[in-house]
């Protein structure tokens, strides 16, 4: 993470709101378009809620990134929860293990430019997403 990155511990509903607000602030700062800001904040809301509900809480780090050509925002969601046993299933639209709509993971992946997931059963899940300015 770059030095401008900020970290939020996610343990309550209120923290999910704080994640949305932080992502919005940084997305505005790197001048993502309004639609891209909306997509990124929505994806962050889905994934932060997953961290809370399925991961049992964890942390979210948000940072501006720059690959030399474009600026963007990178967000890392980490938890030490149960992990995901069947990733294909977890990414299926409409599948849920927790009473939600089953759109969180698959939907969030559609809303960002880069999506990376590392998960191990019994160890936790780390998801990294990036949205670049057009």
């Amino acid at each position, binding site marked *: 993470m770059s030095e401008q990155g900020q970290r939020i511990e996610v343990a309550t509903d209120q923290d999910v709101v704080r994640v949305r607000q932080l992502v919005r602030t940084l997305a505005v700062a790197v001048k993502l378009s309004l639609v891209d800001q909306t997509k990124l904040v929505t994806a962050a*809301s*889905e994934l932060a809620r997953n961290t809370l509900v399925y991961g049992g809480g964890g942390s979210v780090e948000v940072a501006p990134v720059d690959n030399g050509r474009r600026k963007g925002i990178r967000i890392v969601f980490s938890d030490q929860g149960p992990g995901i046993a069947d990733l294909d299933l977890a990414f299926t639209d409409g599948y849920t293990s927790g009473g939600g*709509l089953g759109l969180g993971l698959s939907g969030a992946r559609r809303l960002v430019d880069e999506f990376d997931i590392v998960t191990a059963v019994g160890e936790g899940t780390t998801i990294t997403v990036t949205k670049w300015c057009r």
Partner: protein
Amino acid sequence: MERVPVLKIGDILLVSIQIDMEDQVALQLQEDLADRIVATGCHGVIIDISALDIVDSFVGRTLATIAAISKVLDAETVVVGMRPAVAITLVELGLSLPGIRTALNVELGMELLARVRVDHFDDDDEEDAGATGTPAASDS
């Protein structure tokens, strides 16, 4: 915890969501609205989301649930004021809010509710006609 106010205007309950809702606030709104529909006997609910800069799957599901609960309580729900960026994001997320009536603003939402109510009464008349055994044109 913050609470979203529910205002009664004539036969309509108006809810304008002006805050970034925690999940619990959204669930509370669901309960408050159900209580107010029963207490007031209102037949229409307008939920103004023009101040919301995102609608994620949780809020989307809450809106759909409110619409379903209202229906069971003999009230129609119209969600109004969705921002264009929110609409684009919702559809891409995979949430097209089936079963939810929408209008561009509160005024159009009220017109829609008035029309729905008229149609509703028309339907009732037809059902009554059938029940009294009137030999209405039937394909069966």
